[in-house]
Structure formats: structure tokens, C-alpha cells
């Protein structure tokens, strides 16, 4: 393909955005630790964007680690697998952090499990051969990815095989692997990039082969020099380029990463595919390598458990289906001044009331904030200072959109492009009047959509 395809033409930054204190020092130096296998894992049948799966196992059925628990014929979906060997129990319902109630299949852990070392070796250790990737059949790769139940691990959890399946109308020239991890506190991707750069590079090349992309770029924020170093070393001799991005929230957002690393602008309401790019997360890349080269499903992921409110911050390799309580307990529990437990990062994550929630394929971290961290002055009137406009990475006018949402003035909301908002929260982060801008816009977007579909 063309030479420009692999050439990074971005400036490494995007316009506006914010620079919150990253607080990654709490856990960035801690190697990934394998969570002891919990006595029971509850695996949700829906961990992704798309159709939920139907259970394919019966109650009390003994399953080996990696066995399919639920699957569906729907294209935009991904099967779920058990991370442990054990016995299937009666399915129940759990509430995910985003408030969705989903069916879960509990698996009682059997006596025979892999040791921590063996598990690590199986997941990320060993050799990840790069030769021969060019000869793989793209369709086979996509099939393997689908079978492994791989979904985006950056947060949105979109089924990866859908992204990589070739579409003749929209050719892909670049695979962009997102290692920005721009949310404060989170260090899961960072540790993975340092400790397992080889599968990431291998996965990147496999994804590029599947999508037919000539170029592959791994974008990492420049506050993670060790990660960039490790990846560059692993990528030596391959066409994979490791690009340093400026440290800027929300660099991890697709639109921002693509803009910063490739200089391309994804149209509003469009996908990276519209500009010839497929974006996957670093952990997803590693999972792809494992699925294609080792035929193993996605059953574990790295989760940062961090924040000033947790006793011992850790980066944990946890099985999907382990409960938040298991992880928090392993990290020494909450400190007395803990005030808020967040699934995901503090900017876009969801706060939790109960901790029985299972870890899913998209869980990037558990951040426990103290009362001091979440302190917020009382809301006052908007004085139109324009801070929110100064930081909106999408060049919107959040103050106006929040006003429109509050008064349900959809004409005004449309005039100011409410639907374009990606809810990154920069506006609410900076607002001097403590107005819940992004919260209002989120609500407004949902209501506007509802009323428009109604009429």
C-alpha cells in the first residue's frame, strides 16, 4: 500500500483537552500480580456492545478453564468463556457498574487450577513469533478472534472481530493500537506494555493482517517512557511504529488518538473506519495474539486497583467474573477515609454502591477516592467564563448544551450539536461554578434521543 499509510502524520497532540494530575505514581511501579483464584466467578453473558449471549452450559456441568459458557449467532457479539475450571451453578442476575442488569453464570472453582506462574506464562509469557503472520488467512484470524470472545478492553467493549472484518467499501490502511491510558490513576495498560510488549506487537501485526492494513502504530502518552521503550524494543524489525503522544486527557479517546497520531479527523457520528483506521487497545492486541497463536479465549485481564482510598494499590491479573470485592479484599480493603469506589477511571468511570459486581472484559481499573479527592464546592450560577469551551476536545460549547439539556430545549441543543458530545467530562472537570455539565449533557442526549425516536 501507499507509503503514507504507515507514516504517522499527526502532531502528537489534539486541540484543547485538560491536564489532570495523573496520580499514576500510586501503582505505576507495581508489577502485575496474579489474583489468587476466587472460590467462585460469576461471568456475565453480556460484557460487550451488542447482542447478549445465550448460555450453552447446563447447571452443575463441569467445565474446563476456557470453555464457552454462552454464545450467540448474532454478528455483533462475542462469546464468553469460563476463566476457571469448575462447576456451573444456577444463573443469576448482576448489576454492572453502568447500571445494566445482566444475566450471569456463576462457576464454582474446582480444586485444580493453574498456578500463578503457569497462568502468566500461558497468557503473556513465552514466545510470540512474528514470522508467518503475513501468511495468515485474514478470514481465519477474524474467526479465531470471534471464537476467543475478544472485545475492546479500553472500555467500550466493542467486539473486535467486527472491527477487523474486511469491508471492501471501507479499506483500512492503518491499525492504531491505543496505549495512551489517559485516565488518571490507571496503570493496567502501562504495566502490560512494560511486562508483555511482545504479544502486543504480535497482536498488532495480526490485526493489521486481518484488516489488510499496511501501517500499524502504537500510540502511547509521553508520560510512559518505559512503556514506549519496551514496545520499541519489541517492535524492532517490524513495520510497527511506536509513537509518543502528548500527555493530555482524553488522549485515549478514539477521535483524539487518531487525530494526534495520524492527523486524521473522524467525522462526527462516524467511526475510525471512515478514515481508514481501526483502533484497538493494547490489551486487546495481546489477546488477539494469544487467540490466534495459542487458540486461547479472553478470560483474564489486568485491572489496576488504586487510589488513595485503598490500603495497598496493586495491578492485578484477574479472571473475568471475579467480584470487585475479591479484588478490593486482596488489596487490603478500603481505608477509613475512602469516599467513592469507581469502576474505570475517575473521569469517565462509574461509581459503585455495592462490590459484588463482576470484573468484565472491559474493566480497566478500580479507583478508590478519598473524601478529599471528591470534594466539590457547591454549584453556583454559570458566569459564562468559557472554561468549558476552552477544554472541550470536540470544540463544543458545553455550558450552552448543559443549559439546553436542563431546560429540555432540543432546538438549542441541536443548534449547538449536543449529539456530538463524547462525554469525556473535561467540561465538568474544569467548571469553576461546579456545574455538572457532562452529567446534564449525558442526560440531555439520552432524553433528546428518546423524544426524537418517539415522534
Amino acid at each position, binding site marked *: 500500500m501507499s507509503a503514507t499509510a504507515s507514516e504517522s502524520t499527526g502532531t502528537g497532540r489534539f486541540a484543547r483537552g485538560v491536564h489532570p494530575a495523573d496520580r499514576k505514581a500510586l501503582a505505576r511501579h507495581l508489577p502485575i500480580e496474579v489474583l489468587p483464584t476466587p472460590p467462585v466467578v460469576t461471568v456475565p453473558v453480556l460484557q460487550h456492545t451488542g447482542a447478549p449471549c445465550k448460555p450453552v452450559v447446563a447447571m452443575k456441568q463441569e467445565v474446563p478453564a476456557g470453555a464457552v459458557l454462552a454464545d450467540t449467532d448474532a454478528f455483533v457479539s462475542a462469546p464468553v468463556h469460563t476463566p476457571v475450571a469448575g462447576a456451573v451453578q444456577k444463573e443469576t442476575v448482576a448489576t454492572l457498574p453502568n447500571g445494566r442488569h445482566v444475566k450471569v453464570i456463576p462457576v464454582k472453582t474446582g480444586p485444580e487450577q493453574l498456578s500463578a506462574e503457569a497462568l502468566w506464562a500461558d497468557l503473556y509469557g513465552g514466545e510470540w513469533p512474528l514470522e508467518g503472520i503475513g501468511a495468515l488467512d485474514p478470514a481465519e484470524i477474524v474467526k479465531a478472534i470471534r471464537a476467543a470472545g475478544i472485545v475492546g478492553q479500553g472500555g467500550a467493549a466493542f467486539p473486535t472481530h467486527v472491527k477487523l472484518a474486511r469491508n471492501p467499501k471501507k479499506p483500512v490502511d492503518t491499525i492504531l493500537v491505543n496505549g495512551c491510558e489517559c485516565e488518571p490513576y490507571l496503570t493496567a495498560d502501562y504495566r502490560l506494555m512494560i511486562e508483555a510488549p511482545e504479544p502486543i506487537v504480535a497482536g498488532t501485526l495480526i490485526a493489521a493482517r486481518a484488516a489488510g492494513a499496511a501501517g500499524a502504530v502504537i500510540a502511547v502518552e509521553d508520560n510512559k517512557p518505559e512503556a514506549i521503550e519496551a514496545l520499541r524494543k519489541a517492535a524492532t524489525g517490524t513495520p510497527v511504529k511506536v509513537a509518543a503522544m502528548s500527555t493530555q486527557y482524553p488522549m485515549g479517546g478514539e477521535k483524539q488518538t487518531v487525530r494526534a497520531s495520524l492527523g486524521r479527523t473522524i467525522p462526527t457520528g462516524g467511526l475510525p473506519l471512515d478514515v481508514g483506521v481501526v483502533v484497538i487497545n493494547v490489551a486487546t492486541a495481546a489477546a488477539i495474539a494469544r487467540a490466534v497463536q495459542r487458540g486461547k479465549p479472553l478470560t483474564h485481564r489486568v485491572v489496576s486497583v488504586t487510589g488513595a482510598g485503598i490500603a495497598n494499590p496493586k495491578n492485578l491479573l484477574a479472571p473475568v467474573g471475579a467480584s470487585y470485592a475479591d479484588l478490593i479484599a486482596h488489596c487490603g480493603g478500603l481505608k477509613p477515609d475512602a469516599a467513592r469506589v469507581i469502576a474505570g477511571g475517575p473521569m469517565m468511570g462509574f461509581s459503585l454502591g455495592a462490590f459484588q459486581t463482576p470484573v468484565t472484559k472491559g474493566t480497566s481499573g478500580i479507583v478508590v477516592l478519598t473524601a478529599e479527592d471528591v470534594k466539590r464546592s457547591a454549584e453556583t450560577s454559570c458566569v459564562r467564563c468559557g472554561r468549558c469551551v476552552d477544554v472541550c476536545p470536540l470544540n463544543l460549547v458545553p455550558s450552552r448544551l448543559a443549559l*439546553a439539556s*436542563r*431546560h429540555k*430545549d432540543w432546538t438549542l441543543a441541536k443548534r449547538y450539536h449536543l449529539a456530538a458530545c463524547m462525554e469525556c467530562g473535561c467540561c465538568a472537570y474544569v467548571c469553576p461554578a461546579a456545574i455538572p455539565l457532562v452529567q446534564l449533557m449525558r442526560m440531555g442526549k439520552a432524553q433528546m434521543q428518546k423524544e426524537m425516536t418517539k415522534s
Partner: protein
Amino acid sequence: MDYLATILLLAISTALINNMVFHFFVGNCPFIGVSRKLDTAFGMGAAVTFVTTIAALLSWLITWAVLAPGAPLTTWVWHLIRPDAKGVVDLSILNYVVYIFVIAWAVQLVEMYVRKFFPALYKAFGVFLPLITTNCVILFVCLEIMKHVPSAGDVPDPWGLDKALIYAFCAGLGFLIAIVIMAGMREEIEHCDVPKPLQGPGITLIMAGILSLAFLGFTGMDSNLAKILKPAPTPAPEIKAAPPPAS
């Protein structure tokens, strides 16, 4: 050049300095009633400008030819009937009645025209078109033109048809400017916590008051501009600049 300057002065003076709404208070009913949305306000303003200009054309012609004291057409007809008649024929008592009918007719005309050629615009402000008949801007402009129609001998500042039309157009333009600015502001305060009793006309009038305060800033612009654009017709050569104050 001198002519252009005169026209420019008339235009600025009419549209900005002596703005119909903020200075003469005319057109306040639609100004308050139809200024809720920017689009309709613009439509209303444009319609008023258009109708005003047409009504001005008609009323100038009728006043000049028929109504004013000593109007040529009337005089001619009168002489046909009474060849020996003397003195000036004066039909100006009929001015008001005639103007209001001219305006009503012009509105009808515009309504038909807009309905036929600009259905979208008609939809936007069609309801307001009949209301334009009672828009005082138009009658006010006709009355102002009446004072300046040159048929009557001793008119201090006679206007030809050109000046009458410029005046009418700029009067409408002034109304358009006022109502568009007001509509913008009213859209803006739609979500403001305006005290209940003041919502609607109350706050609109207060904003109009502040705007008319602001427009006072243009006062005197015409006389200063006149000095720059056209030096006094009878310059007094002996006048020297006053010596600087002894300080």
C-alpha cells in the same frame, strides 16, 4: 457627492439615531409581540421594511399629486370644473383616511406576493402580515413624508420621491435592526431566571429601555457627519477658531 452625503445622513439618522422603536416609540406592539424568535422577528422586520417602502411610494405620489395644498392633479381637475376658480385647493383633511387605506392595500399586495413566491416565508410570518396594517411605523412614515411633500409652497425641508423612499426604507431598516436585536436577546433570556411578574412584555420593555440608552450614544452623529461630509453652505469666512482657553 453632496447628494450622496445628504442621502447617507438621512439614512443614518433615520435608521440609527432616530430609530423608529427606540426614539419615536412606533412599532412597539409588534416589537414586543413578535420578537420571541429570531427567524420570525427577521421576517416581520423585512415585511415591515418592504411594506413601508411601498406605502411610502404610494402615499408620496398621492399626497404630491392629490392631497397636498396646491397639488397639481387636484388643481387641474378643479380648474376643469371651475375654470374661473382661484386660490389653493386643499384636500389635506383627507390625509389620514387615505394613508390608512393605502397602507391596507399595500399590505394586501405584499401578502399576496409573499404567499405566491415565498411560501416558506409566508408560513413563518403570514399570520403577522395582516397585523402590519396596524403597525404604526408605516403610518408614521407616511405622516412624516406628508410634512415634507413639496407641493405646498412653504415646506422647510422638501423631500423628493427619492428622499421619501430612502427615509421609508431606512425607517423600516431601523425597525428591523431593533426587532432582530431584541429577538436575539429574548432567545438568550429564555432560560434565565427572570422574575415572574416581569416575564414577557416587562423584561422586553426593560431591555428596550437599556437599548434605547445605548442608541443615545449615536446622538449628534448626523450633525458631526454633516460637518465632515458637506461643509456649511454659507461658510462664514471671518470665523476663526476660538483661542484656546486661558488655562
